[in-house]
């Protein structure tokens, strides 16, 4: 869990847009459906009474693997985020199973917020990329996030408040 300072509040947790889940969901759907497509072939064989329990065993292990892959996809989606609090911005990057990178900077250091809507699909579905430039000349960015304009307004408004 994130350790918040006194009187610090989480304003927004920004995950990727659901479009980034389409590929993983497609893969998991294929993995889950594969045994159902294979079963009629097994059932049509002469040795079906013998093979069916073996097929169920293999399917159980297959579904277990699909479950684990799906869980890892979800963790990758969930832990890849930008957290905006009333005092700072944290960018969290999850790579693979166990690599987690966290960068943070205070809202006072925000100098510029850039929004990029890369193509028509992004315009149509309402997502884009956000890059935040800080006084330390470091850029922090998150790709494919929804409501980019509202996020930009939120960051700028709170950055102004914190510099007053």
């Amino acid at each position: 869990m994130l350790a918040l300072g006194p009187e610090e509040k989480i304003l927004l947790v920004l995950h990727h847009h659901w479009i980034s889940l389409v590929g993983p969901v497609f893969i998991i759907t294929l993995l889950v459906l594969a045994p159902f497509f294979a079963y009629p072939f097994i059932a049509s064989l002469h040795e079906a009474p013998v093979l069916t329990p073996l097929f169920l065993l293999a399917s159980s292990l297959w579904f277990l693997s699909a479950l684990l892959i799906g869980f890892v996809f979800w963790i990758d989606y969930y832990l890849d985020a930008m957290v905006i609090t009333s005092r700072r911005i944290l960018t969290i990057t999850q790579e693979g199973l166990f690599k987690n990178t966290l960068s943070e900077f205070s809202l006072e250091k925000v100098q510029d917020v850039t929004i990029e809507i890369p193509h028509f699909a992004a315009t149509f579905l309402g997502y884009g990329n956000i890059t935040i430039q800080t006084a330390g000349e470091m850029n922090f960015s998150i790709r494919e996030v929804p409501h980019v304009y509202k996020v930009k307004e939120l960051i700028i408004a709170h950055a102004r408040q914190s510099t007053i």
Partner: protein
Amino acid sequence: MTGLFVLLFFLFGYMLLGIGIAWHLKMYAFSRSADAAVWIFFACALLLGTGAIASYAAVDWSAVLAYYPYLFMNP
């Protein structure tokens, strides 16, 4: 018995990996939805693991070996 040992070894390894991933998730989680995801994952894994053991018990290995003697033949 070797087959059952291999299955239990797989399930044990799976459980260790699952616990490791869930622990990692709980370390870095920032909302309650992570707890729900962990519970759903372990409930499904328990169900499927039990199903795998039950399926293993239902397999008539002598019949399988009679049909496919080459399946478990030593090289």
